[in-house]
């Protein structure tokens, strides 16, 4: 039972971590809670279903399941990144110098827009992701792990390692860190801040797209409002780990997944969705800088 919940929690947590990375990267650079980020994840889940359906219709799936899954994932990432890019250009960039809460309200607007956009174009009822692998899996120490769970954990881990390497090793990744630390100084060294911000949105959206598609496969059901609660939970994860910190987002995501799954198993599953909020509130009140974050002082 405990190990089972642990595996479930780890699966869920790695998805939260992927989404949380998008929140934390944007917050690190723009100090903006990108409220619409959860919707990108929702778009990813929908796109997975739509595109896979399309490939099934044209017969690619029966030719090779893995090829069509791969192409679907790639296209989902491309589309979601495009959405992220477009949202930044339309809804946030004009508000770069506005008071802090204006972009937050704008982000809420985008979130409402995207939810209803998907509801209008895809219908208000649940969409089903075809069950491709059934419940196939393996058993370790009397704990059942499906192949899907294993791949979700592995893919998430892979993406996080790649992202970490990107941020630590590449020139663009270093520039992202530099911009997060001091925008004016970064621009004095010739770094184009707008380009870096755009790249941040594209990467964050891409990660959310992967998370969305994997969750669609995992639960098999998708709805236009899944982005809201997943988004809030992922944001909680980001705050838990220390907003602005990439390793923090990963840690926070996995911890939150574990808390939720163990809480559902041992305390009450009805209040499953409330755990994230309770943690969010406690963290913000007790240690607002998060587990791995830096503390902020009021400027006079």
């Amino acid at each position: 039972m405990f190990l089972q919940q642990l595996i479930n929690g780890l699966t869920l947590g790695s998805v939260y971590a992927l989404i949380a990375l998008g929140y934390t990267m944007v917050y690190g650079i723009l100090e903006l809670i990108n409220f619409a980020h959860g919707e990108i994840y929702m778009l990813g889940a929908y796109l997975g279903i739509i595109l896979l359906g399309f490939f099934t219709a044209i017969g690619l799936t029966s030719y090779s399941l893995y090829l069509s899954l791969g192409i679907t994932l790639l296209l989902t990432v491309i589309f979601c990144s495009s959405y992220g890019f477009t949202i930044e250009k339309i809804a946030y960039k004009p508000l770069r110098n506005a008071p802090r809460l204006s972009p937050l309200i704008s982000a809420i607007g985008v979130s409402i827009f995207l939810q209803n956009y998907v509801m209008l174009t895809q219908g208000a009822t649940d969409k089903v992701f075809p069950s491709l692998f059934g419940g196939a899996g393996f058993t370790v120490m009397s704990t059942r792990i499906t192949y899907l769970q294993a791949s979700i954990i592995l893919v998430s881990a892979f993406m996080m390692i790649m992202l970490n390497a990107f941020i630590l090793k590449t020139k663009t990744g270093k520039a992202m860190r530099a911009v997060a630390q001091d925008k004016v100084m970064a621009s004095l060294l010739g770094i184009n801040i707008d380009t870096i911000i755009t790249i941040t949105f594209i990467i964050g959206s891409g990660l959310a797209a992967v998370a969305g598609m994997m969750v669609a496969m995992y639960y098999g059901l998708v709805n236009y409002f899944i982005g809201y609660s997943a988004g809030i939970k992922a944001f909680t994860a980001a705050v838990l780990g220390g907003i602005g910190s990439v390793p923090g987002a990963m840690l926070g995501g996995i911890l939150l997944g574990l808390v939720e799954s163990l809480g559902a198993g041992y305390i009450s599953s009805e209040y499953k969705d409330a755990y994230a909020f309770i943690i969010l509130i406690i963290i913000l009140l007790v240690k607002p800088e998060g587990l791995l974050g830096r503390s902020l002082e009021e400027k006079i």
Partner: protein
Amino acid sequence: MNALSSIIKNPLLKPAFIALWLAFLLLPFRGVKAASVLFITLTIAIPAFKFLSGHLSSLVKQIHSSVERVRHYLPSDSRFLFLLLLPAAAIPLVAQGYIVDVTILSGIYIILALGLNVVVGFTGLLNLGFVAYYAIGAYSFALLNTKLGMGFWSAMPASVLITVIAGFLFAVPAVRLRGDYLALVTLGFGEIVHITLNNWDSLTKGPNGISGIAPPHILSFGLTSLNSFYYLVMFFVVIAIIVMRRIHASKIGRAWIALREDEIATSAMGINRTMYKLYSVAFGAFWAGLAGCLFASKMRFISPESFTFMESVLILCMVIVGGLGSIAGVIIGAVILVFLPEVLREVQLYRMLALGAGLVVLMIFRPQGLFGGKNVSIGS
């Protein structure tokens, strides 16, 4: 690469590229046909809009001046403001029941929005979970009424008190947080209340909600008819407006606004900022609690469905659309957002879509709201 970017930046081709891009984004969701329609529409619409925007700015000016004119007709001496009540009081006599019904609803929303305006508009604390107070007010009222048999005039003050205490207790730890963190915590609070209402079956009957709430009575006269309830709500709306105006012009209102403008300077004036933020949240909760009672006794039935995050956003929109911090603006915002979807029944499907897009556009072009006169901004 450079050739490509120069093509994209070509002012003549740019609209076509934007249209192509947005059509590309729509493609997977609606198919080739809809995407092509969008592409063609936008290719024509964007240049047309650009062309018009020159003329549009004069239109915008006209709107401004007509807003000014409306202001001009409003009695400038506040002693005559009550004259505005006459047409409002006449509504039940001339309009259909349906209109009265919607007007009652907008009255309840006016009280709610005025309450939120204290927190967001005056004090500058973004609250994304205001619906929690509304829900606590409504549920306390419903429970006191159905379980203990308390009447409107005893259950209402008790429920409002419960709401204020809840608001206060929640605010004590929360107000120390910075702007956007506070927003998130309030959102979390709203969700927790919603989840609790949905799951605490023994008390709230979960998603089934509470029914059989008694209508209010005055003496032994039951306010069961729509019209009499209308006047009850009107009474509270008028009270709310008067209280808001007076608070706004007192040291408490000034301290709240000072907090919105500059917290540091406010404490340099000897004002305890934590204290006044608490006042603000508790005072806002008071009106939400009252609105909750009115809502419960109007509907005679409540369920968690009426108290979702979208409801919080809707109330926030009323405050923002009308004009943050402006009492008249908030009232107009509430009326618009309640009536608009009723008037535009056919396009109701697109209402939330438009609301979302509208918020973005508003933040970009008119962050102080449609009727906000001063350049009021929230947060810093």
